[in-house]
């Protein structure tokens, strides 16, 4: 598979205003329908599918949630969620 391992970072490491392409959502228990399944499904239902452009607008202070723009909609993501979404920064 063509997995661009090196540039893959969680959304939380992006700077405010930076745009990246979603590569994967890491769930707690890997494959199958575990606890993380519904969580990943929900994010994808909101448009965070692999290959989608996502912009981190800003993050709230003291490790607060992130505000992201994806497919024209503005979504608030708790830090715990954002840490599990991996993306590749556009050059």
């Amino acid at each position, binding site marked *: *598979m063509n*997995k661009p391992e090196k540039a893959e970072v969680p959304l939380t490491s992006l700077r405010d205003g930076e745009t990246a392409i979603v590569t*994967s959502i890491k769930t*707690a228990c890997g*494959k199958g*329908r575990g*606890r993380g399944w*519904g*969580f*990943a*499904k*929900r*994010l*994808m*239902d*909101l*448009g965070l*599918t*692999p*290959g*989608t452009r996502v912009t981190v607008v*800003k993050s*709230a*202070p*003291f*490790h*607060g*949630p992130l*505000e992201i723009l994806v*497919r*024209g*909609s*503005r*979504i*608030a*993501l*708790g*830090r*715990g*969620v954002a840490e599990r979404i991996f993306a590749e920064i556009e050059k």
Partner: protein
Amino acid sequence: MTEKKLVFALAGNANVGKSVIFNYLTGLHQHIGNWPGKTVERAEGTLHFKGYTIDIVDLPGIYSLSTYSLEELVSRKYIAVERPDAVINVTDASVLERNLFFTLQLIELETPMIMALNQIDLAKKKGIEIDTRKLEKLLGIPVVPTVATKGVGISQLLEKTLEIVEKNQTAKGKIRYGEEIEERITKVAEMVEKIQFWYPPRYVAIKLLEDDEEITREINRIDPQITRAAEKLAGEIENLHGHSCSTVITSERYEAAGCIARQAQKIVTPTKPPLTERLHTITTHKIAGYPIMASVLLLMFYSVFTFGNYTSELISNILYGWKPFFSSVLGGGIVEKLVWGGIIEGLIASVTIALPYIVPFYVILYLLEDSGYLSRIAFLMDNVMHKIGLHGKAFIPMMLGYGCNVPACLGCRIMETERERVLAAFVTTLVPCAARTVIILGLVGQFLGFQWALTLYVVDLLVIFAVGRLAFKTLPGEPTALIMEMSDYRKPHAKTVLKQTWFRLAEFIKIAFPLIIVGSFAIKLAEILGLLEPIAAVLSPVTVLWLGLPAITGITLIFGVLRKELTLIMLATLLGTTNFAQVLTPVQMITFTLVVMFYIPCIATISALVKELGWKKALFITVFEILFALTIGGIASRLLMLVPT
């Protein structure tokens, strides 16, 4: 034309103006209840149009038709099993792509449907122009542009919907997935066609490949061969793409939605960001966001309490003005005592909380919600709430709790999981409501000074934090993180806000009024029968020995179950003075107030808890809080003794 009955369902994402359309269509002919056996709200209304009686069912606002949440499950089942005559898909024109993702799933359900392309005025402001003709062609369903808040396009929407019903038109279009997926969908669909099932075969096939929990379970019961085949085929897709099959299908569906959106819309980004955008930036700003939030909340509390105190007094004066009239009719004696003291005073008590405090609270809250500000507050408060295992949204019911715990408990429905609803409801009952505020300010604030009252509030916050954290650590399960859309700010729609308020008020009246009245009656009866003194005596080991309070406070604590501020009124009556400094020591005042703050949610709150969480959890919370309040009170009285005053 004969009077014919039809059912239309409104379906769409949250915050697209669905409820505005619903209100517009049905006016006051609405009925709000729950889906059978679920805590998901079901709103229904009726309208008459062109000789038809049309039932409108407002489905919950959702983003998908998978089974992530109860709302999604309920909606999907409703459309597939109960088969409404038409589904009206309400969409937000300014976020077309994401809305189309849901539309495409509805189309897969092969139901007669139409799209209301709503908020086209807001989209225009953002520089988005949509070619509805093209959209109709691409989707294969009629599309009607609407501005629901102004009533634009609504009658056209109804006419078009009737048209598709009369022509018996179902959604024709379908998305084509990639060849390798289509091939496998067809294979599964062919197998599904042979069995009896309420969803369309192609839909079932797609859902089986997506490993949808409900459908896989149901099909497995009918013919496990099909699920096994689907699992194998899904594995093949997974190997081809390197992602799970459900990810691949979701991606492709979004691709299709994006493709349609790009073809149908033209975006010209305005040179200057629109006002709503600038408002968003400042209200969620790292620094400025917090003082703005604090000011909004303070203003809200201040206006609610000012309005509440004034009106509450006014109403109770008017109602108590009827006392002589009742006395003359009932002629004094036991009957008068029971009817007046029990039933009517109970009624007055209910009215004087409900109208003056709860109504303005709801109005302001729904104004904030409808405008979009509540989601910004949730964003700002998220990390604080995380400390007690909740996320930002839980701050909203907690805030409501400062007005009255009953709507606050009902408001905990906005939390996603059962675990969070329990946690949020529990924490919420510890928030000092308006009635408890009366005691804190009226007893401690007045006689010991404002700084002591403030200290109690701080103690309360600390307790909420500590107990919340404890509950969070002990309750099994993982906390859910915040995933929330922050839709653009918009002007709140007055009618919708008022209607929401009205329905919530009706709910409160239904829950609380009977209980408060019956409770008042029972206590009055006990008083007449002379049972209060013995009860106080029974309670005295706790009140006198452990808490160090006068024995009669036991009686007042019983009254407090009905309505917390009654404890203070009763205390005055029983002690024969309103100058509490003469009869209570400062330590006793603080102990008493602490106990009242925590000891039990009032009877109306308990019933709200029963309604939302079931009686077991409600009982547990109640018992816990009684024991907790007594513990805190006892410890505080001993500690405070050590403080030189």
